[in-house]
């Protein structure tokens, strides 16, 4: 059902956990299936220095969470914003058709965390 890459990321998920006092936190729920994902970002300047996630969800949800954290670590915010759901699925070697919606969680949570970071910056400024 799942590719080897998916199973690898499911079995040994990268960057599981929380970042206390993170610069940005994003949480999304998958309206289709009720699964939930939370992403924590540690940002220095324009760069994502550290990233962690927590996910309640299926194998694909866990694997895409893990994959997206790998993909953004060390990237600039602009680069991170460019990461699409499709890119995450592709990086995992593809997902079964009925599991494609799961990859939405990962990119959406990432983007939500970046938005949270900007909101906090605004507040700090304003």
């Amino acid at each position, binding site marked *: 059902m799942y590719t080897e890459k998916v199973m690898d990321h*499911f079995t040994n998920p990268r960057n599981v956990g929380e970042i206390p006092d993170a610069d940005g936190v994003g949480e999304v729920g998958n309206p289709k*299936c009720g*699964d939930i*994902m939370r992403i924590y970002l540690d940002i220095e300047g324009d760069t994502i220095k550290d990233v962690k996630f927590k996910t*309640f969800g*299926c*194998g694909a*949800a*866990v694997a895409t969470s893990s994959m997206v954290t790998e993909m953004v670590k060390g990237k600039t915010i602009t680069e991170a914003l460019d990461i699409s759901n499709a890119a995450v699925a592709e990086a995992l070697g593809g997902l079964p058709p009925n599991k494609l919606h799961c990859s939405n969680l990962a990119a959406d949570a990432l983007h939500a965390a970046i938005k949270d970071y900007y909101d906090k910056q605004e507040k700090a400024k304003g």
Partner: protein
Amino acid sequence: MRRVYLDHSATTPVDPEVASLMMTYYTEKYGNPSSIHSFGQEAREALEKAREQVAGFIGAQPAEITFTSGGTEADNLAILGAAEAYKDKGKHLITTAVEHHAILETFEFLAKNGYELTVLPVDEEGLLSVDGVQRAIRPDTILLSVMHANNEVGAIQPVAEIGRLAREKGVIFHVDAVQSLGKIPVNVNDLNVDMLTVSSHKIYGPKGVGALYVRKGIRLVPRVYGGGQEKKRRSGTENTPGIIGFGKACELAQARMADEAAKLTGLRDRLMDGILERIDFVKVNGPRGAKRLPNNVNVSVQYVEGESLLLSLDMVGIAASSGSACTSGSLDPSHVLLAMGMPHEIAHGSLRFSLGRQNTEEDVDYVLEQLPKIVERLRRMSPLFDQ
């Protein structure tokens, strides 16, 4: 790696005795039972013997058995066939919220095509109220279908009582006994049923074979037209080796049922109690004790998701199933758990272990060793779980 199969409610291995009998009919006695030559006649004889074995197991007459390609087809034939045959008597149908999809989807098709459908609720253990059935029956009710035992939570319904009621009111009573056959006694007379569905691959027989018991006198409009096999109820060249395998599986199940049920009940409770002991925030789904199938364990593990549980179990060789949305195509969690009033999030993390003939205490203990570690790992990953 150790492999522990705990998904017998999904399907069972074919018993070696059954399989080797089938081989003979695949490669040597392969005649078409409708042929008059000796190849045909030896197949015909074995087919009719299988009919006796299946009938004998459920207290029916051989002539009351129609072989089908499985439980799903038998359910469809019963519901659609009777609804069509008795449509002049009325258009009201009754079933329950916890039936298998083979029943529910079929009734829903009828509800969209001129029939009226009442779907009865169940209590938090998944059990039906006989009173509720009584209240639902109307003068124009023609057909009532209730499963004997539930495939997800193992709840055994008060079918005999419901059957008595149906008979009093002149309503045709169908029972889906796919999960109960071979685990608890199934007798068409004791249960007061008019039609009853059974399936071979749930009792160590081959896949692709099932049967519908139809009490003498009950009419059915066929669903498949052709050569007129199975007394015109179900056309198509008979799956002779499969049917013979099913017959043999019934014979074996009949001989072993009492012993097996006792053993499975022991394993079931060892597993259920062991899980409750070792893992926090776990809830047993379905009734406990005699109202539960001897082989069914169903628990909800809070804060973790079912598919992740299954995948993790599979990685250590344990095969189980779940009522999780994520494991099905549909994305809705189990309609059975929802009907029992369980919130979405908790239904999401439910696990079914269904025990079988080969399972041992060691199998159970292996699960009890692995599952807590898996749950802990997944909970550490879960945003819902705060230590």
